């Protein structure tokens, strides 16, 4: 009897041991994500798929409620307990990198068949890649086709070659602005106080204004993110040009840029003929708006340019398994894993092959659910324009942009309402604006 028990125990022990050894081959890494466990169920499903697809790495999901995310990461950083990799907010990213908390990810996509677009690389001091975005977004022009047809005006161009100059843009906007008697700003008896349809909206939700400084041949920051150039004549003039659409030309409704809703309150609500917006708006509000809309490239002042951005996926420097974490992120950010967001038009693909390889491109733009049915239009704006004219938004290379953008929003209010000029407002507040990107 005793022998039997001993035998059973030995066998049991051996079994446990082998099981433990099999487990021991696998490296466990953690991936942090914002959201409650219920909200993150789909992310968990993707992780399960990864864990089942290979036998080297087990990825565990760490769910942190959205509103506590950065605070929690900060305290984990202090305690040296950061996860191996995770999603982050683009605003706090470079401060994290400057504190030495992010791994250099230049080799992240080495084992992958395609790399992310260059403009989607977050660079410490404008040089070292410390993160890639999880997808892509660009700024573009949305327009209401019915309003253009009614006014007998040709649609805005989908190719950069035919992009409106700023003056052409104003001319077209004037033809599409109507007061309650149907008069346009070109008519002598036009009543600017009773406009029922506006020609255009340049979204002045603060960060989206950077692209106009670049369009006018300027910038907000130097390429290493250390110098604030918003007081350059080009940058100031670009802000004034946007403000003048409302103040002088009467083709744009008065917005103070205080909320992120430019497109919702303009083209999507059927009150404005054309408006700038992010590519995500195709899926988030335009496709369900019932508006017969089209997309085109942004007008330009001196140089054709658009902004691109999206939230980063990082590997933390404290991780002991950086290679595994990088391989996982490279796999995780593959478009197939977020296809629902991509084919509904909310996300644009991250990897270069979708912008260069026609097979990959077609799976995206010819997808049945894709909101833009006109293939040539979609390809011209979303592929060619992105590939040739997209520039990284400021947080890809400048730390502490959130303080800068908040302050700029407050500084620009009187510019939009016409109480002061862009030059007065920026020069009066330049020192404070400059100080806001320096950490205190």
């Amino acid at each position, binding site marked *: 009897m005793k022998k039997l028990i001993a035998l059973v125990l030995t066998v049991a022990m051996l079994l446990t041991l082998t099981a433990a050894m099999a487990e021991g081959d696998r490296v466990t890494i953690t991936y942090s994500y914002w959201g409650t466990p219920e909200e993150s169920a789909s992310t968990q499903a993707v992780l399960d798929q990864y864990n089942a697809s290979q036998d080297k790495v087990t990825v565990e999901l760490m769910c942190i409620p959205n*509103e506590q995310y*950065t*605070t929690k990461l*900060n*305290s984990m*950083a*202090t305690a040296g307990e950061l996860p191996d990799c995770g999603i982050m907010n683009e*605003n*706090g990213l470079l*401060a*994290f990198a400057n*504190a030495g*908390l992010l791994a250099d990810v230049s080799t992240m996509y080495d084992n992958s068949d395609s790399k992310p677009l260059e403009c989607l690389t977050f660079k410490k001091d404008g040089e070292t890649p410390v993160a890639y975005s999880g997808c892509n977004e660009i700024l573009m022009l949305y327009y209401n086709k019915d309003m253009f047809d009614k006014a007998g005006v040709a649609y805005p161009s989908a190719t950069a070659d035919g992009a409106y100059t700023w003056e052409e843009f104003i001319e077209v906007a004037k033809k599409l602005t109507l007061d309650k008697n149907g008069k346009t700003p070109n008519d002598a008896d036009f009543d600017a*106080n*009773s*406009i029922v349809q*506006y020609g255009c909206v340049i979204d002045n939700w603060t960060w989206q204004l950077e692209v106009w400084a670049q369009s006018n041949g300027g910038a907000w920051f130097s390429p290493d993110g250390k110098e604030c150039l918003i007081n350059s004549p080009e940058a100031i003039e670009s802000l004034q040009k946007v403000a003048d659409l409302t103040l002088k030309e009467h083709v744009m*409704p*008065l*917005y*103070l*840029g*205080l*909320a992120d809703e430019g497109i919702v*309150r303009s083209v999507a*609500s059927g*009150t404005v003929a054309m408006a700038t917006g992010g590519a995500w708006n195709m899926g988030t509000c335009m496709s369900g708006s019932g508006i017969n809309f089209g997309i085109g490239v942004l007008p330009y002042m001196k140089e054709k340019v658009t902004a691109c951005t999206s939230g980063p996926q990082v590997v933390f420097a404290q991780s002991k398994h950086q290679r595994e974490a990088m391989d996982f992120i490279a796999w995780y950010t593959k478009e197939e894993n977020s296809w629902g967001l991509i084919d509904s038009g909310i996300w644009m693909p991250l990897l270069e092959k979708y912008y260069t390889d026609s097979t990959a491109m077609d799976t995206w733009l010819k997808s049945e659910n894709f909101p833009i049915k006109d293939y040539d239009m979609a390809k011209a704006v979303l592929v060619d324009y992105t590939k040739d004219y997209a520039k990284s938004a400021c947080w890809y290379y400048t730390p*502490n942009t*959130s*303080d800068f953008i*908040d*302050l700029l*929003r*407050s*500084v620009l*209010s*009187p510019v*939009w*309402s016409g109480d002061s000029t862009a030059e007065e407002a920026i020069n009066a*507040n330049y020192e*404070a604006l400059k*100080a806001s990107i320096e*950490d*205190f």
Partner: protein
Amino acid sequence: MKPVHSINRMHSAETRTAWLCLIPSVIGLVCLTYIPLIAVIGLSFFNWKGITAPQFVGIANYIRLFTVDPYFIDSIKVTVYYAALSVIGSLIFSLIVAMLLNRKVPARGFFRAIFYLPYVLPAMAVYLGWSWLYDNTHGLLNYVFNQMGAGKILFLADEKLAVPSLSLIAVWLSGNLIVIFLAGLQNVPRVYHEAAEIDGANGFQRFWNVTLPCMTPIIFYNLLMALITNMQVVTPALALTSGGPGNATCFMSYLMYRYAFISNKLGYACAISTIFFLLIGIFTLLLFATSRSWIFYEGDDAK
């Protein structure tokens, strides 16, 4: 001697039970209120961004707040301005509505529900709805004004009008005050009204000399609660204005939130909290100090 002794023992037993019963709430109060409060005051003397260890900087945070900070002084002004407008507005509005609802109007229950309803609606939905009413170009209010030929009113886009416009929403949201006022009104003794009526007092005189004095304890309570709630205002700035136009709606709680959770300057945000705490404390003390002179308690001989 014996009875006294037993009374003493009974007292001490009661005291013990009282203390035992108080323990849970005292633990809660200490752990969730006092310790965090002291921690916040302590942290306000540190430069702490969350990522690195806190670094003692003395009163540097406070000096920066009052000298260099581009928002802080404005934020104190607008918070006090908003609180004053909202508190006075909502007290007057809810007292009037409560008195109307206290009369025998038809469908009284329905109207009571209607006036209470805004208070239970989700804040985000309320502010979004109002933002469409207030919209500069396509808003309902501006449409109406335009039809009347009155021109445009930039409710949220004008630095001078932004705070009053938001206060109006706060007044509209004051359903809870109405309920408390209603309860108070029902406790005003009928005999006083009858006596005043026999003496020939008209409606206004009865309101001024009977209803109002009897309501002062309730008014004081509502005043205090409304003051504290409205000083802590943050949702409209988050939902509608992002603190603008300019700094016109950059309320202290909103500024604190932005520094603490968006730019991760936790020590600095704690300094704002500390000043905010002192400010609310001062206002509350002022209210209590003046309360003796204007609150009428029934059966109180001191008056």
